[in-house]
């Protein structure tokens, strides 16, 4: 098998090197070792990079670090038990006729607040008491949750934002973010669920353990959804990982190859 032939090549090279040392070494054969792979060298850096225990500081838990949950896929499959994504007649018509060749994400437009977190790229959380930043590797887009008691901008309805406007507070150990004013051109998931300017998200972030972050979010949009629905996704801390380079237009080749792909044909 490939592994063995390569391993024996590698081992032969190592043996050749060892031969030079043979005289100085103890001639007893090495003790049998377990077949476990050698541990990777431990990363050097902040506790949220190395996986060490954070310093005990009073206040809410620190979610700072690099997290990963995987792509949104179809959010109707991530609803909590008893919750259901039910489309209005208008919402159903849109979902059945959405053209996947027009996914804003393919055109390097910023993902909305949920889709930029629930991604096959990791997300970094940078937490201060007065503002929390979510930095996504995908599109290198970011969003801010203001924790300083401010309200949404008064003219938000006139000036919606791709990432929405988010204000948050702590309920015990759960960060609750109220998110509105999301540009209605975003898709909430890869499968093509769209929304109106009235979409309102209530996002709950809870560290259930040092390396697990639960994201429980309610979507309300009477134009598209017959009733509010709540989804849950789990984020895992990516120890030793970092946000890597991404640049959507650097060598973009997909747009010219896209073919109209309507509704279920794209799922």
């Amino acid at each position: 098998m490939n592994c063995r032939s390569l391993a024996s090549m590698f081992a032969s090279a190592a043996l050749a090197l060892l031969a030079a040392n043979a005289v100085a070494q103890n001639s007893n054969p090495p003790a049998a070792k377990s077949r476990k792979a050698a541990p990777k060298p431990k990363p050097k850096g902040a506790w949220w990079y190395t996986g060490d225990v954070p310093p005990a500081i009073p206040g809410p838990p620190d979610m700072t670090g690099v997290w990963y949950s995987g792509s949104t896929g179809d959010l109707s499959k991530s609803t909590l038990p008893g919750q259901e994504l039910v489309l209005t007649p208008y919402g159903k018509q849109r979902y059945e006729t959405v053209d996947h060749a027009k996914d804003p994400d393919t055109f390097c437009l910023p993902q909305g607040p949920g889709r930029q977190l629930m991604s096959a790229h990791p997300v970094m959380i940078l937490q201060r008491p007065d503002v929390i930043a979510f930095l996504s590797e995908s599109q290198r887009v970011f969003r801010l949750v203001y924790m300083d008691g401010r309200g949404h901008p008064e003219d938000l309805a006139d000036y919606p934002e791709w990432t929405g406007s988010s204000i948050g507070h702590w309920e015990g150990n759960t960060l609750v973010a109220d998110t509105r004013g999301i540009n209605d051109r975003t898709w909430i998931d890869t499968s093509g669920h769209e929304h109106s300017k009235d979409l309102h998200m209530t996002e709950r972030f809870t560290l259930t353990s040092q390396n697990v972050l639960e994201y429980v979010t309610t979507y309300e949009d009477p134009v598209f959804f017959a009733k509010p629905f709540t989804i849950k996704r789990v984020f895992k801390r990516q120890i030793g990982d970092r946000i890597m380079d991404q640049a959507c237009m650097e060598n973009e080749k997909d747009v010219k190859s896209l073919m109209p792909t309507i509704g279920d044909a794209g799922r």
Partner: protein
Amino acid sequence: MMNRVLNVFAVSVGLIFAAAPVLAHHSFAAEYDSTKPVKITGTVTKVEWMNPHIYYYLDVKADDGKVANYAIEGGTPGGLYRQGWRKDSLRVGDVITVDGFRAKDGGNHLNGRRVVLADGTRLFGGSDDGGPGAEAYGKK
């Protein structure tokens, strides 16, 4: 010493198959046809280790002896790096085999899902984009 050498190698190979975040930014089906699997073996003529997807190009000889150049889309550089790919995992002149799916717009353009490198190493080379499952191609 040899056990440690072999263990380090095992870790490297394990890394190549380890699950890791990869790109999913749009529908696979809007561009590629999962009903049209293709398997080709050819010689690498160019590698573009760039965002948002890597591209590599293969000269493939058809049964009639004619050589056609194929453009193959892979995953995102960051995601592939996490899986053990490096920018020189593919080099011009390497003979590789690619399992993938044809682009819907015709032409010799594939989304490459599995790659067998010149030295026999098998890699998952695609994106986590809802396309044919990585599990089928040895990615854990």
